[in-house]
């Protein structure tokens, strides 16, 4: 859940609009869909912030320091760790968005099984696999998997958590607006009830 934290320090510098960045690590992009699901409020959001590195605008590298980084998905491979670290270095506030970022989510179902077994099941032994060469993909361009899927806060410091699968557009909107205005977040019960 988001706790109140003032962002006056940054806004006080009058450096123009604060910047937001987003990333999807080992997630399904569902949380990003939920961000887009704020509908026409995205126009208001653009008035409040500029988007920096994000799949939404396809900016690959940070153009400057960001106020908020929204992270979807946990860390399943070395590239995820690398990106997450890059975000931590460039964002003042990191928010774990959604259950994969917070708990590992569906990808973490492999956590009880040794990595080698997982790869063999996926690429060699699985009942629907057709792979006559019996090779596990191993191009050097492919990031190496971690031994298990880690929630983001096990890898870097995370400031806030927005649970949900995905968190609804309203939840994300309310959280961002509260954060940008330095106001306490008061989410109605419907937005944080999951069963």
């Amino acid at each position, binding site marked *: 859940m988001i706790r109140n934290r003032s962002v006056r320090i940054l806004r006080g510098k009058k450096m123009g609009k604060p910047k937001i960045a987003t990333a999807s690590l080992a997630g399904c992009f569902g949380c990003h869909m939920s961000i887009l699901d704020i509908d026409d409020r995205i126009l208001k959001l653009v008035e409040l912030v500029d988007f920096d590195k994000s799949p939404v605008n396809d900016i690959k590298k940070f153009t400057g320091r960001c106020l908020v980084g929204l992270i979807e998905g946990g860390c399943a491979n070395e590239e995820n760790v690398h990106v997450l670290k890059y975000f931590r270095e460039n964002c003042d506030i990191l928010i774990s968005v959604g259950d994969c970022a917070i708990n590992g989510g569906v990808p973490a179902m492999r956590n009880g099984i040794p990595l080698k077994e997982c790869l063999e099941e996926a690429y060699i032994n699985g009942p629907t696999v057709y792979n006559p060469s019996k090779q596990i993909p191993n191009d050097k361009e492919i990031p190496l998997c*971690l031994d298990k899927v880690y929630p983001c806060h096990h890898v870097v410091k995370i400031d806030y958590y927005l649970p949900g699968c995905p968190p609804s557009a309203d939840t994300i909107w309310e959280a961002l607006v509260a954060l940008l205005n330095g106001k306490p977040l008061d989410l109605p019960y419907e937005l944080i009830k999951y069963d």
Partner: protein
Amino acid sequence: MDNKLEQAVKQICDECGNDRTRIMDIVIALQKSQGCVSSQAMDLIAKQVNAHRVEVEGVVSFYAFLSKDPKGKVVIRVCTDVVDRMKGVNEVGQAFQAELGIGLGETTEDGNITLEHTPCIGMCDQAPAALINDEVFTNLSEDKAKAIVQALKKDADPKKISIELGDGNNANELVKSEVKNNICKKGEIIFADNESGAGLKKALELAPADVIKEIKESKLRGRGGAGFPTGLKWDFASKAEGDQKYVLCNADEGEPGTFKDRVLLTERYDLLFEGMTITGYAIGANAGVIYLRGEYAYLRAFLENKLVERRDKNLLGKNVLGKDGFDFDIRIQMGAGAYVCGEETALISSCEGMRGDPKNRPPFPAQKGYLGCPTVVNNVETLSIVTRIMEKGAAWFTGIGTEASAGTKILSISGDCEAPGVYEFPIGIKIEDLLKEVKAENAQAVLIGGPAGQIISATEFNRYICFDDLATGGAIVIFGAQRNILEIVNEYMDFFIEENCGYCTPCRVGNVLLKQRLEKIISGKGEKADLDYLQDLGDSVILTSRCGLGQTSPNPILTTLKNFRSLYEGLIKVEKDIMEPTFDVKAALNDAETVAERQSVIY
């Protein structure tokens, strides 16, 4: 189907009246005769007592001394309590392993001997100690461990190992144990001489309501630690509706560091039996149950025999002491190694032949307890005091101790002191004076009331043991200056993680998270925020757990956070990292590098 097993199960179930509320007795007896309660045996028991199989399996899987898989004829359980570790149990455990050629949790190839570890077995005053089947072996050393194994290899019967018998009734024909009483200080109430039967006789001269009145006037409060007024509890039970009522004695002292009930059961059993009889008379119950912890099974035959003697003298049975219409008898219910059963509602579950799960309150046991009937659950010490109050009067009792906390308290004192043992002090003793009495110089910390209580530092040694200040069930452990307090706290967290029943998430999960965060701090990777985390999470576990276990399990951490904060702060990292210090990306990539046969280009 195995005919022999079928016969054994049938015989045991018949002996217990094919009563499903006696499943505990059935599985304990079967474990003893067959070495395990196999899957097949569970089916047979369920059929025999008309229970679901899952009920039987639930019980077998819950208790540490029961097992589905066969164990050796002899099971050595080395006590790995904090005090035993302080006294060198690690070396003793290694000596056992080396001599047997097996590790902890393993059985020798011939299937004769199994080696395990167990939490506190109530022998901290003569640690290190171990249970071998039901027998207790104390003051162990590496040499003694070797000698024991050699004797067991010749003859797999722990009763035949030569020992020097302990003092008092420990040398009794039916006990024959090397346990020592270590009664270091006798007070005016429990350890004073008394005339057997005198208290009961006086009680039977009064009306039941007047007995309750007398106990209320004595201001007696429960000695288990919570300090609930005993007279009030009895009053509730006596006024509760029900033809059948019960008196339960909690002899399941499992709090690490406590062992006083062991001594009371060995030497002052008469006070206890009589106290239960008086309670029965007062509340209108005709049956009592003593829930004896599995670790004290070596006392069972002795206690059963003493009950027979009391029946012969008409101190139990029909028309007790000629009082027309007052029948009362006591049975002993064995436990099987579960700390949580010391919690009164879990204890009731266990007596009813179920898993030792605590129950929701209300209804309180005094309204609906054992088998749904009004039940008084009191501690061994409380019930023993009752006998003395009836004998000598409430006014005599309130003259001892302090105004708000009447009487004496028996303390089990162990750890870094010269004279560990059992002490009976008038309530209100100062910790400083207590430390002098037990010859503990150089104490850095004192654990009051076991790990569920609190760990205090030298600045608080001017506090008093009483219900208004430091309330305790009686376990006192002293830690000298050479001890690492945070490591000790960590070991106590292991204990709670092992012993929680698994029912509530805050306790089952919260204690693990507390321990992980504590270990992060101990390993030098902690930040200041981790201290706040420990405090917040500890408070939540206390607030949201159902029974006393979860409501006290964060105490080792919370009380040291308060009383030994500098120890924590000294370990906190000053510089901030980008990455979480506990995340090791190189280690996390090891598996993948092995499978792919290439090194990471990033890390």
